[in-house]
């Protein structure tokens, strides 16, 4: 089918708003960051080019390197949580017979999404408070020996950060999984029922293969989200104790706005950016490319 000029240009036309916004707000910023990373730009001083000095310092920076280790743990668990729990909830909802009941549960899972993160943080901070929360429960159950100063001990701080937000259902990922499950055609499902398949078999042979694209999207989004966000850690431990919960994004923020060292912070940012790109590409390859 031959395409007219009009049809050929249409895709680019449709993409114009996106591309312009991206160029102005995003690509200018990353370009600026790359340029700055090769200077010693700091607040209040004019900058000079310093070549790779910042990058060399970054790779010698013990805290920066440790923060990547922490980040790895946090990201792997975050991606898992973003896929597993929403999928679990969606699956259970799928098998509920009464549509009204299922709808009620779905709404109930979505509403907490509207609660801002700060409230969740406050509640979990209370639970981790050495004088209240979990420790009180442990003491009441006679297991006082298991109490810890959860957020302030190096051995427990990171794990506690990861657990914040349990059960991780109330999120966009749940909506995506739910959409995905319900988008699978009814005939497949009914054919399976006729063949006498159990719920577990339905899940394994019908659901999982057909929502692969949705799982891939969730993995990509949660991967990127986990690598860029630092609000949670900033509000709970600030990277401490020591730097057992420090992540690259937080360190970069502190250096940029706390010390005003834009040059070094930009270098850290560029390194982080490259790592994110590599990880995302790797994960997409792993989950299989589409057509």
């Amino acid at each position: 089918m031959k395409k007219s000029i009009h049809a050929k240009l249409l895709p680019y036309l449709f993409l114009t708003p996106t591309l312009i916004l991206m160029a102005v707000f995003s690509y200018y910023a990353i370009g600026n960051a790359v340029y700055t990373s090769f200077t010693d730009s700091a607040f209040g001083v004019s900058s000079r080019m310093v070549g790779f000095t910042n990058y060399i310092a970054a790779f010698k920076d013990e805290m920066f390197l440790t923060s990547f280790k922490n980040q790895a743990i946090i990201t792997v668990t975050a991606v898992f949580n973003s896929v597993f729990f929403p999928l679990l909830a969606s699956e259970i909802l799928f098998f509920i017979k009464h549509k009204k009941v299922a709808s009620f549960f779905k709404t109930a899972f979505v509403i907490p999404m509207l609660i801002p993160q700060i409230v969740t943080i406050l509640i979990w901070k209370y639970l981790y408070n050495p004088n209240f929360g979990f420790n009180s429960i442990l003491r009441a159950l006679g297991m006082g020996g298991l109490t810890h100063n959860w957020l302030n001990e190096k051995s427990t701080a990171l794990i506690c950060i990861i657990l914040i937000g349990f059960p991780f259902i109330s999120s966009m990922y749940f909506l995506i999984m739910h959409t995905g499950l319900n988008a699978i055609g009814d005939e497949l499902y009914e054919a399976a029922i006729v063949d006498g398949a159990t719920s577990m078999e339905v899940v394994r042979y019908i659901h999982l293969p057909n929502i692969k694209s949705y799982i891939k999207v969730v993995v990509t989004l949660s991967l990127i989200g986990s690598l860029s966000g630092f609000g949670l850690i900033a509000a709970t431990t600030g990277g401490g104790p020591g730097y057992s919960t420090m992540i690259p994004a937080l360190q970069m923020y502190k250096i940029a706005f706390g010390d005003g060292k834009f040059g070094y912070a930009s270098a850290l940012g560029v390194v982080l950016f490259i790592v994110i790109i590599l990880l995302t590409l790797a994960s997409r390859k792993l989950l299989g490319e589409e057509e």
Partner: protein
Amino acid sequence: MKRRNRAISLLLATAMTLSMVLSGCGNSASDGGQNAGGAKSAQPDTAASAAAPAPADGTEAAWDTGKEDTIILSVINNFYTAGEKKLAEEYMKLHPETKVVVDVISDNDAYLTKMVTSLSDDKKENAPDIVHGNFVGMALTNNSMDLAVDKGYLYDMTEMLDEENPYNGNAKVADVFETDDLTRVLSNSGGKYRPYLPFDKIGFAFFYNKNIFEEHNIQVPETYEEVVEVCQKLKDAGYDVPLSAGYESFRLGNTLADAIYRAKEEEFLIQPEDALWDETTMASNKDFKFDEAQPNCDQFCVLSPERMLKYGIENGVDTPENKAMWTEFQKLGQYFPKNWIAAESTQCIADFESQISPMLYQASFNAGLILSDINQLSGDMAFEWATFQINSFENPPEGFQKDLRSYWDFGNIMSIIHKEDSDHMARVKDFYKFWYSPQGAQLCYEETLTNGNYVQGPCVIKGVTLSEELEGILAGFEPVAPSKEWNSITGLERSNQADIPKFNDAVIRYTNKEIDVDGLLKELNPIYSNYNQDAKTAGGYDLDPATDDTPKE
């Protein structure tokens, strides 16, 4: 479906109406105890509520009254924000051609981000006009406000002090301040400029739970040794954390350092042969020697940042004096909460209010909050409390003097951002004078209190009076004499943001007894050195006080 939506809308409408009604009544007379003075009513004791300052007759505006302009006052929440909004309102009545906007920002971190971002543009067109100057200093290395003036960010108010204040009957701007306060501004900023004017003072004290003290037959301690003893007694009585302390505990460290270093204070003062020497303001520095009989004797002395930096770079942080300070600090520090360095004040105050910790080390700016909180406790959660200060050693250890001086320094530090437009600057300065006049400051304080917020500490502007009860409470925070700040030499609060986790980690391991004082100082040395090198480079210090320094461009 339609029915459900209608039901929701109805519910929403009812909820909104109900809450409008509820908020309509019970407006002014807020719940007892919201007022820092503890008074049940919102009105202070002083006769009439403050009138707004008015310009003296015959004052001519230094700007074009025909043109409209906007000035922006950027403040952090709880720094007299209600008072400032009222001042803005009253000022606009006097000068309708100037719009005064009060931009409130919720916390220190967000404020720093905003300052750095809005000042990153050289033209500073859209930067705010009146800001917390110390934050601009923080963003530049060495916390140096002098550097901020050198680089053109902040406006030096030295000349303004000699100008007339139309809102104070044309008296000089400087007249409402005590001379030692003005000297203190000079000393705190680095000895060259006055980037801000004094407004209030904040101090620190120990809060204690009277009920618990009585229960265990404990007397209120008066010396440092006694506080340590009390902590041990409380620990033996079963209190895991006898003294709830947070990040502010560094002030305690400085108090101890002050008892050591003031004996050789003359080494760190600006000397007549220095480039920064100014006969009129630094006369006290000449041949100075600290006199223990007069703990206030250095109130007119001006410290030299370059001398302190030189000392720091030459000696590092592991000096015998610092070792003595940290050893002494540990005697009390071992009773602090586990991760006290990173603990938020909210947490520490909560521990005191829930009676988990019988004592609390906190600042005057939270006294009002604690007062109102505890007033709201009832039944067996309520308890009586008071504050005490520690003014001396019983037997000072070697190297220490007997008297202990505490932090008593300016809390609210407001500077003017220097912009090119002289018409605009004239307006900003005029508003500043409006605020820093006796009537303006009085209005600010009273409006803050009326709105159920708390004041940070007593006002240093002459002529401002507060209620007796409030003055009484705040007096509990004033020490026998104010300490000087030795952080540049002890390394406290002197680390880059990037190094803070390492710094905190080392100190915590020390107070938890995982490393000893030598180990601590060894770990702190590189951090201290990093900071000093950055400061030296940014300030362009050549470490010779006799010569001028050129800050890095």
